[in-house]
């Protein structure tokens, strides 16, 4: 795994939507730094100028300042600008405006202690029926063998392969406790909640091998619930699917 | 009572601005927190019920006649609670004991009836773990039952310590019975909410 993707700042971003999130984070931090530094300079200046010393006395009547009110209103307006111009539109596009079903790759991701089960529908494009009763170490997803749609389904553990430049719709769920499906380089993070099937989508813009992490404490092995996220070229992805398909 | 610098004020006399004694304000605050406690549990009930595929019909699963009887018992006990306070306020200590005793007795009757209901459910293996309906039923009525037990304990204390307290400071005892009454009415009120949502809907 290439360590050049990561450093002390934001990790590299290979997603279609991530640059918006990064932009928001950067704007926020610049504004925060400006506020904090300006404000600290004022604080230090005040502390030095009004230190107790002989010949200096405190004034009882407080001067009324107009500037702070102005700054406060400005900060409040800035916050609502960020909300309206960045946060809400990004959230809307990431969480609700899904790509059309026929243009996207569909994958199910089912979390468990401490692994990610990946489920591709196979050639027929239909996920086979699953049931908790069939779940076991040999069949972690509980696929129902009697369902014809299940015959061509591809399942992997901890190996999520996707083609580049293609929207991917993930249906996320969990078998046991709450997990959180995280791909840092994709700016993707979503809780996997047992009893719910949560849709999310993303689109990778670069090929490479990256990692999937669990962001929600899920037990003793939480720290090693690591998956692999591989973005292949479209051709390579097709070959991989063929190789993985059940004989 | 004289009020020197080191004695706490407004124990008997209402505060001139707020118009209440310390204890009364305290019990109202306490009841506000109780509202939040049962409010959270009622919200839980709502959320689980709306989120469930099927929910048993109250009258078909629970014993409505017994619960109706219990509702009447609690309402009656609220009346006797008021009467016991009114008796103290008019200086009739004997009647106070009679009515307070009746209130405590009604509380016990409520618990006994509730015990029969529980026993009946257990006989049919309807334990809290059986379904979310039984889980919420036992949790809500159980927590309410604990509140009833607490109320009975307070009432019994004032029943048996009443004479001493009455002789020491009649005004203070009257105030305390009023506060105990507020609590008792609250417990009654919770049941008035529990009865329809669990048994009737």
């Amino acid at each position: 795994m290439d360590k050049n993707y990561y450093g002390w700042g934001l990790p590299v971003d290979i997603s279609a939507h991530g640059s918006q999130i990064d932009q928001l984070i950067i704007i926020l931090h610049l504004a925060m730094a400006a506020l904090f530094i300006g404000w600290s300079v004022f604080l230090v200046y005040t502390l030095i100028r009004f230190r107790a010393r002989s010949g200096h006395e405190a004034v009882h009547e407080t001067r009324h300042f107009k500037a702070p009110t102005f700054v406060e209103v400005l900060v409040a307006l800035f916050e609502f600008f960020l909300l309206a111009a960045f946060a809400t539109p990004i959230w809307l596009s990431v969480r609700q405006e899904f790509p059309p079903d026929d243009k996207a790759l569909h994958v199910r991701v089912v979390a468990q202690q401490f692994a990610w089960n990946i489920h591709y529908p196979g050639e027929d494009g239909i996920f086979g029926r699953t049931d908790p009763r069939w779940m076991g170490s040999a069949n972690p997803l509980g696929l129902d063998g009697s369902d014809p749609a299940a015959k061509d389904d591809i399942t992997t553990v901890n190996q999520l392969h996707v083609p580049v430049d293609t929207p991917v719709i993930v249906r996320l769920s969990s078998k046991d406790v709450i997990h959180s499906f995280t791909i840092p380089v994709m700016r993707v993070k979503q809780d996997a909640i047992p009893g719910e099937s949560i849709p999310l989508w993303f689109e990778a813009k670069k090929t490479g091998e990256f990692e999937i992490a669990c962001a929600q404490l899920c037990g003793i092995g939480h720290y090693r619930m690591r998956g692999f996220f591989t973005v292949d070229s479209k051709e390579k992805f097709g070959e991989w699917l063929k190789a993985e398909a059940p004989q | 009572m004289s009020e020197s610098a080191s004695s706490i004020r407004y124990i008997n006399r209402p505060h001139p601005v707020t118009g209440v004694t310390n204890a009364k304000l305290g019990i109202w605050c306490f009841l506000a927190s109780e509202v939040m406690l049962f409010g959270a549990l009622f919200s839980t009930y709502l959320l689980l019920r709306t989120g469930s595929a099927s929910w048993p019909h109250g009258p078909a699963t629970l014993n409505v006649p017994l619960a109706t009887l219990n509702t009447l018992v609690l309402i009656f006990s609220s009346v006797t609670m008021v009467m016991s306070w009114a008796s103290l306020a008019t200086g009739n200590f004997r009647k106070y004991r009679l009515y307070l005793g009746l209130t405590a007795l009604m509380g016990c009757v409520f618990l006994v009836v509730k015990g029969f209901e529980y026993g009946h459910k257990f006989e049919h293996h309807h334990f809290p773990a059986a379904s979310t309906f039984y889980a919420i039923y036992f949790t809500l009525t159980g927590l309410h039952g604990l509140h009833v037990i607490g109320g009975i304990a307070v009432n019994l204390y004032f029943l048996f310590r009443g004479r001493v307290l009455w002789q020491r400071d009649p005004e203070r005892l009257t105030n305390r019975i009023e506060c105990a009454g507020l609590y008792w009415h609250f417990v009654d009120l919770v049941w008035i909410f529990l009865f329809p949502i669990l048994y009737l809907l």
Partner: protein
Amino acid sequence: MSGHADPGLPFWRKYIFSTDHKVIGVQYAVTGLLFLLFGFGLATLIRWQLAYPGQPLPLIGGWFAESQMLGGIMLPEFYYQLGAMHGTIMVFLGVVPLAVGGFGNFVLPLQIGAPDMAFPKLNLMSYWLYFIGGVIMFASFFVPGGAAQSGWTSYPPLSVIASDGQTWWLIGMAFLINSSLLGSVNFIVTIVQLRADGLSFGRLPFFVWAQFVTAFLLLLAFPPLEAAAVLQLMDRLAHTSFFMPSGLVINDAVVNISGGGNAVLWQHLFWFLAHPEVYVLVLPAMGIVAEVIACNTRKPLYSYKGLVLSAVFIGFMSFIVWAHHMFLTNMGTVMSTFFQVTTMIISIPSVVILTVLVLSLWGGAIRFNTPMLFAIAFLPMFGMGGLTGLPLGLAASDIHLHDTYYVIGHFHYVVAPGTIFALFAGIYHWFPKVTGRRMSETLGKIHFVPSFILMNCIFFPMLMQGLAGVLRRMYDPLQYAHAQAAQPLNVFASAAAWLLALAQIPFILNFFGSLFWGRKTGENPWEATTLEWAAPSPPPHGNFLEAPHVYRGPYEYSPPQAKSGFWPQHVKDPR
């Protein structure tokens, strides 16, 4: 500390099961400080594992049981116990008992000119419920399977299937919640009913206002958590399914429960408490800072009204922001927008409070004594904590930062160099009132300077790690490539944390040493104006020699009428 309690009582009624608010306040404060030290100790162990994962802990590694550390190497079970219990202890057993139980109990009745709390026996009960809760939490480390290990947030279903420690945690929490409830009833009634003659609400010191709002938050926000704790106990002990959805499969076996529950319900109930709880941690701290700043700038606060209105507004708003902790639980745009808007709104009064406190310095004659240093340091540190809340409060940036070290850095900036510095300021400020002796200024400054620097060395790297995507609650930070890149920051922060532990030694020496050798002081060593300084130091049972009457607002420093430079609330004519 002699002379606090009723002199006619035997020792155990006077100092152990006392009903005197001052004794109870000191009990709360000392117990809270001990728990803070203990909780900090847990954090230093966590820091070892984060800096040097899998390496045996030197020197003290052998002291632990084999179920905790095998050959000095920390086991993941123990790591997660440390994490959960560090959070629980710092918040519920350390900061709140010290800020509300300690300072609230001791200072508040004095500041309003009351002889005691409204319900002294209830007060006694509050402390002992807290104490029992603390003992249960502490003892849970020694039950089979160890203490709670599902995080201080205890999210089900994980917490429901966890070992017995979780049951102990829930029972301990029930004791702590009931203690807080009784305490908050007591505080509200005391403030409303027992103010001295002439002390209208508009003349209350800001500290009292802060405690007043805090008491309402505790009163109304804690019961839902109590309800949640009852439900989780039912899930654990009676095998109900409040938080357990249908079809759970754990270790390849279908769990034998009825199902039908909702795992996210707990989070709603928990955060409905835990967000107001943040303000429970912060408001008393702001109250202390306001008192110390007004006294040591020798001038009135910039805008008393602004402070009070902001505190009350924060109190109301804090009940409708809770779900900003839950953006990633499949929340729609409408819900997330609502909680983002409320979150942005609640940031405004916090900014107002901070601005008022900073502007209060303008025009003063600032005395840089130890309490003032800690109070001033609170301002930028809390500012840092508040600012870093913004990227977390906006759902879009929260996608990247959620559950990373950015969150840890953010709330520690609020609570550790924020609230805890304010609490130190309070200790140095009111120590003379409690004991009749001053703490050493030299040791105080030796305590302050390294603490201030090291706090930043610990928590600033966490913000950087968070931006790099390093996730919280990782037993082994080297598992992930993105975390390996930021590992040097972990080593640095850990070293700073251990040095910070050493930096507390001057404080401990100062605290105990000053009890015996501190310079004796009169009733008003800081030349302050509020009522607590009108009572003798230490105040006797009943507090005031005669009931005080209040003539003016709380911060009349350097008024033109008074030659002495301050005009106490209870003094009719200027001196």
